[in-house]
C-alpha cells in the first residue's frame, strides 16, 4: 500500500516565542521539530508498512526551506519517499489542505493517509478533515488505536473525557493521530545515513494549482497576550495558610 503522512515542522514546545514586525515570530534560537502529533502519525504509518509487504511510506510537508530538516528526520525514522511543497508565504488551512490533496492525488493508488490531530503552531484543528473532504474520502481524528480487519480500517477515536468511538472506514482514508496511539521510534544512525541520500520531490503551490494561497483567512497581527501580575505565597503554618487561601479565594478572588 502507498501510505502517506502529512507532517508539519513547528517550533519546539520549550521555545519561548517573541513577535517580529507584528506578523511573524522571531526565528532565531528556535529549535524546529516535527509536530509532536505528526510523530505518532509517522510511527503508525511505519508500523502499517511493516505489516503490509510491498508498502512504502511517503512523508508530505508544506512549508519553507527549513522544513527539510524535519523531512529528513521523517525519512530517517523509516519513510521511503518525501514530498516538499516549498513556500515562504503564509498559507491558510483551506489552501494547505487543497495543496496536500493535489500532491497526494498525483498517486492514483494512495491508501491510508496519516496526519496529526493538530499542529501545535496555529492549533487550527482542521487540515485533516478538510483534506479528507477535498479527496472525498472518510476521515476520523483524535485516534488512539488503529488496525485492519479484512479490508476495513478500524480506529478508536477519543471523544469526551475518556469515552471512545469505535469507527470503521474503507481505504483510502484519513487518520488523525493523537497521543496513546503508539510510541514514536527514534531515527537510527543507519536510518540517518540512508535518509541523506533519498531525493526529496519538490513541488510548488503553482504546480499544485494553488494560485492564491491566502484564500479567505488572513492573519493581521500577531501579539503577546497580556502578562499576569505576579502572585503571592501565603506564608505561615500550613493549617493557617490553607485557611487563608480559602478565605482569599472566597472573598478576594470570588471564585468559590
Amino acid at each position, binding site marked *: 500500500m502507498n501510505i502517506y503522512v502529512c507532517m508539519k515542522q513547528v517550533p519546539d514546545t520549550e521555545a519561548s516565542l517573541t513577535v517580529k514586525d507584528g506578523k511573524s515570530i522571531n526565528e532565531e534560537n528556535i529549535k524546529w521539530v516535527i509536530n509532536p502529533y505528526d510523530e505518532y502519525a509517522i510511527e503508525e504509518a511505519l508500523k502499517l508498512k511493516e505489516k503490509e509487504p510491498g508498502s512504502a511510506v511517503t512523508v508530505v510537508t508544506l512549508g519553507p526551506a527549513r522544513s527539510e530538516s524535519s523531512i529528513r528526520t521523517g525519512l530517517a525514522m523509516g519513510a521511503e519517499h518525501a514530498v516538499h511543497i516549498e513556500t515562504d508565504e503564509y498559507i491558510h488551512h483551506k489552501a494547505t489542505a487543497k495543496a496536500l490533496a493535489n500532491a497526494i492525488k498525483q498517486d492514483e493508488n494512495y491508501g491510508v493517509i496519516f496526519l496529526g490531530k493538530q499542529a501545535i503552531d496555529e492549533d487550527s484543528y482542521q487540515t485533516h478533515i478538510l483534506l*479528507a473532504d477535498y479527496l472525498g474520502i472518510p476521515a476520523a481524528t483524535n485516534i488512539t488505536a488503529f488496525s485492519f480487519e479484512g479490508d476495513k480500517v478500524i480506529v478508536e477515536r477519543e471523544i469526551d473525557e475518556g469515552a471512545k468511538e469505535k469507527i470503521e472506514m474503507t481505504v483510502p482514508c484519513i487518520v488523525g493521530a493523537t497521543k496513546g496511539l503508539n510510541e514514536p521510534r527514534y531515527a537510527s544512525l543507519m536510518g540517518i545515513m540512508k535518509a541523506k541520500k533519498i531525493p526529496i520531490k519538490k513541488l510548488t503551490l503553482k504546480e499544485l494549482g494553488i494560485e492564491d494561497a491566502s484564500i479567505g483567512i488572513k492573519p493581521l497581527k500577531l501579539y503577546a497576550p497580556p502578562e499576569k501580575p505576579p502572585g503571592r505565597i501565603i506564608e505561615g503554618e500550613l493549617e493557617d495558610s490553607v485557611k487563608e487561601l480559602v478565605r482569599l479565594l472566597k472573598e478576594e478572588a470570588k471564585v468559590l
Partner: protein
Amino acid sequence: MANIGLYIELKEGKSKKSNKETLSFAKKSGKAVYAVVFTNDVGPYLDELKGVKKVIQVKGDDLTYQPDFYADTMAKIIKDFDLEYFLGIFSAQARDLFPRIAARTEDAGLINDCLEIDLENNQVARPVYAGKLLCRYAIEDKIKILTLRPNVFPVEEGGAGDPEIATVDLVKSEPKIKILEVIKSEAKKIDLQEADVIISGGRGIKTKENFALLQEVADLLNAGIGASRAAVDSEYATYDMQVGQTGKVVNPKLYIACGISGAIQHFVGMKTSRVIVAINKDPEAPIFKKADYGIVGDLFKAVPLLKEELKAVL
C-alpha cells in the same frame, strides 16, 4: 442584516452549559439568530432559546451523532436559511464536526477557538502556539464559521420573545464512516474544557491511587481533575486528563495545581485560568511565579486540610 446560525450542542439530551455563551454573544450582536438543535422535541430547550428569531429543529428517526449526517444537514441549513455566520462552542464534537461543515459549504472559512469576535469588521482573535501568542485574523470568506473558546464569552441570562420554529429533516447521505460503538469511560468525568474549577496533580502525587485525594476536593467544588504530562506518563492519570501544550488547553475560573512544577508546556495549557493556585513543597518551583496564590508545603498534608476547610465554608 446578516443571519447568524448557532449549533446548540446537546450532551445526553441536555443542552451543554457553554451554549449559553454562544447564545449570549449571538443575541447581543443584533443579528437575526437561528439556533439549530438536533432533536425530535424542541420543547425542553425553548426556555433557553428565548430571544432568538428562529429555532431550527432537526428531526430524524436516529439522531445519534454521525458526522456525515450532521455536517450535510448543517451545510444545507446554512444555505437554505441564508446564514452568513455559523457559530458553535469549541468542544470535542465541534473539532470533528465544524471542519466538515466548512468543507461542505461553498465559500466558507472556519476559525476555531476564538477569544474575540468582531462581526462588524469580520475579524477574530485567537490563541496560537498554545496561547504563547495571540493572533488577529480577517475572514474574507462569504460564510464565516467560528467556534468560541468555552468560558471566555460572558453569559447574559434571559431574553424576550418566543422564537419561531422550523423543522428540517436530518440529511441521510451515504455515510463515509461507520460508528460501530461508543465505549464509555467507567469514571464519570467532568469535561475539563468546560469546567469552572479544575484541580490537577503532577508527578508529586506519586501514585494513581493518590488521585483520590484530589477527587475528594473535586467533589466538593464540582471540579474536573487534570494532570501534568509527567503524571500521565507515569500512568497515575490518563491522557484525557493531561493539561498543556500537547494535552488540553483549559480555561477555568479556578485552577489548583498540586505537585506540579510549572513547566512551560504545562503552563500554556492553563495560564488563562482566572485564578491559579499552586501547592508545591519546593519554594523554588517555577509554578509559584505564575500562580496567583501559592502554598509551600507537602500536598499530602495541604490537600486534606483544604478539603476540611472547604467543607467548613461551603
